[in-house]
C-alpha cells in the first residue's frame, strides 16, 4: 500500500458516535468511500468510529450524506462531529486496526434474521441452505451471547466455534456482509441444532432436527425450542387440545400466549394489521405486537382467554423461521418456563423445568449468555408503544434530554414487578432488558447478574444509587446495601414521580423546563405519606413534584390479596360510596359478592386490619370488572381483570356516553367514583350489556381525567401533560385521555420507547437522580 501526503485543507476527520461498532459500520463506510474515490481510513476506537478522509470537497460531503442516509440497519448514529485532519492518509481507502481507549462502545441489541440471510436459508445452492444459525452484520445475536467487552467473538458464546476457512474469508472481507460479524457461522464450523428427547424417549433423533420437530408439533406435541434469549415452548396454536394441555402443564391459567407466524399473510387471517403494526412486526426488533383479533379466522379461545387481542411475532431467528415455515397457521411460542419463573436459558435447567411439559427439545450447542425475553409492543394513538422492552431493544441507550449532558454515572434500581435497572452514562440512559418479578429467586439472580454484566459492558462506576421509596422492594433493598457498600449517596424516589420523570425524559423534556402535569394511573406504588398511591396528578419536574389530585382512596381488604381477588375491591368501593346497604339494592344485585364473607371484610376494613387504603386506578378497574362478573373471584395474572374489561368495552364501539365521576373542590382534588357506582347499578338493573357498561366506565374515567387536568391548568401555569403508569397500556383509556387532552390544547407527552408500566420506572429514577446530583 502506498502512502501519499494529502493537502491538509482537503482532509477531514469525522467522529461518529452511537451504536456504530459490531454492526457493519466500517465496511459500509469503506465501500462508500471507495465508490467515491476518496482516500483515507475508517477505524473503531473507544468512543465509536473515526472516519479520516481526503479528496474533493463535494465528494467528502457526499460521503457524509451517504453515511447519514445509508448507515447499516443495526447502526444508530447519535452524532457526527467533523474537524480538519492534518495527519497522513492512505491513498487507497482502508479499514484500519482499532485503537484502544476507554470503553464507551455499545453492545447492540439482538436483531431478527435479515432478508439476505433469509434468502440464503431458502436457496439450495447456498452453503448455508437451511442452516439455523446463519447471521450477518445486519442480523443475529448480540446481547444474548455477550459475556464481556470488547465485543468480539472471544467474548461471546460463539468462542468455542473456530471459524472455517470460508467463514474466515467472509469475516475478513470488507466487501462481504459478514465482515467482522462476530457470530458468523456455517454448517461446517458453527453450532448445530438437534432434537433431544425429554423423559422416556431417550436418545436424540437423527435427521433434520427442525423437520422432525415440526412433525411432532403437527401431531399435537409440545416442543421446547431454544431461541435467541431463552427457551420457548411451542405447539400448534390451531390445536385446541395442545393449547389446553400447554396451559395445564405450564400452570398458566389465563395469561395470553404469544404466537409466531411465518409471514404477515398468516397473521392477517386472524388479525387486522395497520401500517404501523406492519412496520413493527417486520422491523429488526421483531417484537410481539398486540393486534386486534378481527381477522376472518379464529384461534382457540385458550390462546388468549377473554381478550380481543393476539400477540404475534414473526420468526426472529433462522431456527424459528425454518420451523414455522412448515406451518400454514401460527404456533404458540410462549416463554419456556413454569408459571412465574423466568424463561429458561440453560440446557440442564431446561430439562429440569420443561421435561414435564415438552416431549422434545429443539435445541443447539450455542449457549445463551443472557436471558433476553421477547419484547411486546402495542400500537396506540398511531405510535408503537413498548410494553415489555427486551429483545431487539436492550441495551440500546436512550438519550437523556438537554441539560443532562454532564450527568454523573449513576445506577437506578427500578421497581419490583417488571423490574428493569438503568445506568446513566455520558448523558445517556441505558435501560436494561425486562427482568421480571424480583421476588422470584431466579429472576433476582438474573437481575444481579445483569447488573454486573452491564457495569462491565459499559465500564460503569456509579457515583450514586437511586431506588424506589417502597421499603420492601427487593430492588430498593439491594440498592440500599449497594450504596452502603460503595459509600455512595442513596437517592430515594417516589414511585409515581419516577413514572412522570420517565415520560418527561423519554420525550426530551429539558432539565430546566417548567413543571408539567404528570397523570400516573397504575396499580400500586408507595406514597410519600406512607399510603399506597396509584391514580395521581403530580405537577412535576425532575427535581420534585406537587400532588394536586388523586383517585379517592379505597381500602384494600387483605392487602395484596385484594389485588388477586377483584370482588374485594368491588365491595370496598361500594362500602366507600356510602355503605353497601345504602346503595339502592340488596346484595343479590351484585352477583360477584354472593356467598362472600362480607361481614369479615367489614371488620377488616373498619378495624384497619391489613387493609391499607389505596388511590389506585388498577383497583378501580378490578372493582368495575368484578361488578360485571369479570374475574370477580380471582385474577390469574396481574392486570387480567382490566385487560378483559377493555376487551368487553371494545365490543361496544358505538357507545359514546361515559359515567360521570365527582371531582371534589378540596385543596387536594379527589376523584370520587360514587356517582359512577350508582349509574352502574341502575344500568345493571335495566339489563344494559356488560360491554356497554365497560365502555361507559372507560369513557367516563377518561373524561374525568381530562376535566381534572383542565381544572388544574386554570389555576396553575402548565401546558404540558405527561401520561404514565401501567393503566395507559389500555388502548381505550389511553386514546380517549390522549385525544381529550389534545383537544383541550395541552401538549401531551406519552411513552413509546420506555414502558408506561413499571418497566420504565428505572429510567425516571435515573433522570431524577441525575437532576438531584447536578443541582
Amino acid at each position, binding site marked *: 500500500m502506498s502512502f501519499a501526503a494529502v493537502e491538509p485543507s482537503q482532509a477531514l476527520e469525522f467522529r461518529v458516535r452511537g451504536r456504530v461498532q459490531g454492526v457493519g459500520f466500517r465496511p459500509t463506510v469503506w465501500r462508500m468511500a471507495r465508490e467515491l474515490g476518496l482516500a483515507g481510513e475508517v477505524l473503531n476506537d473507544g468512543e465509536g468510529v473515526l472516519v479520516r478522509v481526503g479528496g474533493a470537497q463535494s465528494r467528502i460531503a457526499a460521503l457524509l450524506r451517504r453515511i447519514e442516509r445509508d448507515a447499516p440497519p443495526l447502526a444508530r448514529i447519535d452524532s457526527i462531529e467533523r474537524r480538519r485532519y492534518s495527519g497522513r492518509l492512505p491513498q487507497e481507502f482502508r479499514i484500519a486496526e482499532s485503537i484502544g481507549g476507554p470503553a464507551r462502545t455499545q453492545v447492540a441489541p439482538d436483531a431478527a434474521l435479515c432478508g439476505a440471510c433469509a434468502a440464503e436459508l431458502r436457496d439450495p445452492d447456498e452453503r448455508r441452505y437451511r442452516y439455523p444459525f446463519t447471521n450477518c452484520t445486519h442480523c443475529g445475536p448480540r446481547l444474548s451471547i455477550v459475556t464481556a467487552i470488547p465485543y468480539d467473538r472471544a467474548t461471546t458464546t460463539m468462542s468455542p466455534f473456530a471459524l472455517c476457512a470460508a467463514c474466515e474469508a467472509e469475516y475478513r472481507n470488507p466487501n462481504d456482509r459478514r465482515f467482522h460479524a462476530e457470530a458468523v457461522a456455517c454448517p461446517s464450523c458453527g453450532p448445530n441444532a438437534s432434537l433431544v428427547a425429554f423423559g422416556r424417549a431417550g436418545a436424540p433423533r437423527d435427521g433434520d432436527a427442525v423437520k422432525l420437530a415440526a412433525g411432532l408439533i403437527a401431531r399435537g406435541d409440545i416442543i421446547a425450542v431454544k431461541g435467541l434469549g431463552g427457551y420457548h415452548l411451542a405447539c400448534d396454536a390451531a390445536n385446541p387440545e395442545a393449547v389446553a394441555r400447554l396451559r395445564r402443564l405450564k*400452570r398458566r391459567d389465563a395469561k395470553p400466549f404469544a404466537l409466531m407466524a411465518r409471514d404477515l399473510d398468516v397473521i392477517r387471517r386472524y388479525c387486522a394489521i395497520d401500517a404501523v403494526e406492519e412496520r413493527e412486526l417486520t422491523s429488526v426488533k421483531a417484537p410481539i405486537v398486540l393486534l386486534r383479533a378481527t381477522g376472518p379466522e379464529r384461534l382457540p379461545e385458550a390462546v388468549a382467554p377473554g381478550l380481543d387481542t393476539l400477540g404475534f411475532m414473526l420468526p426472529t431467528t433462522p431456527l424459528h423461521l425454518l420451523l414455522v415455515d412448515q406451518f400454514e397457521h401460527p404456533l404458540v411460542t410462549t416463554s419456556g418456563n*413454569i*408459571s*412465574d*419463573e423466568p424463561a429458561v436459558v440453560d440446557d440442564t435447567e431446561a430439562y429440569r*423445568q420443561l421435561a414435564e411439559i415438552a416431549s422434545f427439545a429443539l435445541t443447539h450447542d450455542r449457549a445463551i449468555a443472557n436471558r433476553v425475553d421477547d419484547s411486546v409492543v402495542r400500537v396506540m394513538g398511531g405510535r408503537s408503544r413498548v410494553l415489555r422492552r427486551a429483545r431487539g431493544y436492550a441495551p440500546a441507550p436512550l438519550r437523556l434530554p438537554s441539560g443532562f449532558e454532564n450527568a454523573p454515572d449513576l445506577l437506578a434500581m427500578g*421497581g*419490583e*414487578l*417488571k423490574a428493569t435497572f438503568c445506568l446513566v452514562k455520558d448523558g445517556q440512559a441505558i435501560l436494561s432488558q425486562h427482568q421480571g418479578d*424480583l*421476588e*422470584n*429467586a*431466579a429472576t*433476582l439472580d438474573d437481575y444481579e447478574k445483569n447488573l454486573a454484566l452491564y457495569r462491565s459492558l459499559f465500564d460503569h462506576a456509579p457515583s450514586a444509587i437511586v431506588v424506589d421509596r*417502597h*421499603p*420492601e*422492594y*427487593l430492588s430498593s*433493598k439491594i440498592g440500599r446495601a449497594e450504596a452502603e457498600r460503595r459509600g455512595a449517596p442513596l437517592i430515594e424516589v417516589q414511585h409515581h414521580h419516577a413514572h412522570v420523570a420517565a415520560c418527561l425524559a423519554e420525550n426530551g423534556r429539558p432539565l430546566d423546563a417548567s413543571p408539567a402535569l404528570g397523570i400516573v394511573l*397504575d*396499580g*400500586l*406504588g*408507595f406514597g410519600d405519606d406512607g399510603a*399506597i398511591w396509584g391514580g395521581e396528578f403530580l405537577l412535576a419536574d425532575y427535581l420534585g413534584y406537587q400532588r394536586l389530585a388523586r383517585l379517592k382512596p379505597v381500602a*384494600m*381488604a*387483605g*392487602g*395484596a*390479596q*385484594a*389485588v388477586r381477588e377483584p370482588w374485594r375491591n368491588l365491595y370496598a368501593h361500594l362500602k366507600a360510596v356510602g355503605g353497601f346497604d345504602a346503595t339502592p339494592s340488596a346484595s343479590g344485585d351484585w352477583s360477584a359478592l354472593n356467598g362472600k*364473607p362480607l*361481614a*369479615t371484610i367489614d*371488620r*377488616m376494613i373498619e*378495624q384497619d*386490619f*391489613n387493609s*391499607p387504603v389505596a388511590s389506585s386506578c*388498577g383497583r378501580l378497574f378490578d372493582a368495575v370488572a368484578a361488578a360485571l362478573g369479570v374475574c370477580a373471584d380471582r385474577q390469574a395474572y*396481574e392486570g387480567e381483570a382490566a385487560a378483559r374489561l377493555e376487551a368487553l368495552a371494545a365490543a361496544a364501539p358505538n357507545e359514546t356516553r361515559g359515567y360521570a365521576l365527582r371531582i371534589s373542590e378540596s385543596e387536594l382534588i379527589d376523584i370520587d367514583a360514587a356517582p359512577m357506582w350508582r349509574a352502574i347499578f341502575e344500568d345493571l338493573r335495566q339489563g344494559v350489556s356488560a360491554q356497554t357498561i365497560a365502555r361507559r366506565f372507560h369513557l367516563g374515567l377518561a373524561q374525568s381525567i381530562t376535566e381534572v387536568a383542565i381544572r388544574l391548568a386554570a389555576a396553575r401555569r402548565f401546558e404540558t401533560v405527561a401520561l404514565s403508569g*401501567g393503566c395507559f397500556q389500555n388502548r381505550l383509556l389511553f386514546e380517549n385521555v390522549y385525544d381529550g387532552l389534545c383537544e383541550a390544547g395541552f401538549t401531551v407527552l406519552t411513552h413509546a420507547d420506555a414502558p408506561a*408500566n*413499571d418497566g420504565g420506572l428505572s429510567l425516571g429514577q435515573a433522570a431524577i437522580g441525575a437532576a438531584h446530583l447536578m443541582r
Partner: protein
Amino acid sequence: LSHGSGGRAMAQLIADIFHDAFDNDWLRRNDDQATLDAQEGRLVMTTDGYVVSPLFFPGGDIGSLSVHGTINDIAMAGATPKYLSASFIIEEGFALGDLKRIAQSMGDASRAAGVPIVTGDTKVVERGKADGVFISTAGVGVLPDGLSLSSDGARPGDAVLVSGSMGDHGVAIMSRRENLEFGVEILSDSAALHGLTAAMIGAAGGALRVMRDPTRGGLAAALNEIAHQSNVGFTINEELIPVKPQVAAACEFLGLDPLYVANEGKLMAICAPQATETLLNAMRAHPLGREAALIGHVVEDERNFVEMTTRFGGGRIVDWLSGEQLPRIC
C-alpha cells in the same frame, strides 16, 4: 381494681392472688428475693415482656404465654429452665376475676412445666397508663458444659427442621382480636418446649447447631436472622412446611403469609446433616413434635437469602420485612 386509694389492703389482696396461684416454698418465705441453690454448668438467663391483645385467646392467655415464652427462650439455648420471676403492671379498673384467671393459668403452666415462679412484683397504674395487664417474666436455666447452641452456628449442608405447624398462635390471636370468624376455631399453639428440646439434645447432642422459637415475624424472620448471623442462606420447600389447612385458609383470607405469622409452641432446629433422621425421630416421639418436618437446608449464600421452592416448583425469596406486610404488587 383501684389505684392508690386501696393502699395496703389492695396490695395484699393482689399479692395473695399470686401467692395462691403460684404457691411454692420460695414464695411462702415472703422475702423480697428468692435464694436459689448454686447450679452445675453455666447459667442462662432471659427476660421478656408480654403485651397481648386479647388477654384471653383460644388455646391460652397472657398468663400461660408469659410462662411458655420465657421457658422457651431458655430452652432454645439448649438449657434446662429452673426458675421464673414475674412482674405485673395492672391498669386501674382491671377486673379482679380476670386477674385471678390469669394468675391461675400462670400457676398451672409453671407447675405443668416444673419451673416455679420464685419471686415477683405487682404495680397498679392509673387508668389509661396500661392496657389491662402487662406481664414481665424472667427466667434462669442451666446449660450443661460442652453444649453450645447459638444463632451463628448454621453451616452449609445443615438440615432445617420445624417441630410442627406454622402460624397457629398469630392467627388465633388475630381472629379473636379482630373478631374474625373462619368457621373452625383456631387454637394458639402456646406451649413450653423444654421437654422437647431435652429430648432433641439427648438424641442429637452436639450435632444440633441452632434452635429458635419463631415467635414474632414467624419462621421467615427467624430464618432471615439466622441467615445473617451465620452468614449463610437457606433453601426451604413450601410443600414440606406444615401449615394447618384452617390456618392456611385464614391467612389466605386475611392476605397474610403464614411464614410471617407468630408461633408460641413451635421451634425451628438446624442440625448437622447426618443427625437429621435421629433428630426427626426424637422430635416425632415427643407430644409437641409429632408433626416435626424437615423443611430445607442451609446453603452457602453471601447475600443471606432465604429462598423457597414453591408448590409450583418456582423459587421465591422469603425476605425480611422491615414493616408490616405491605403489598408490593404494582
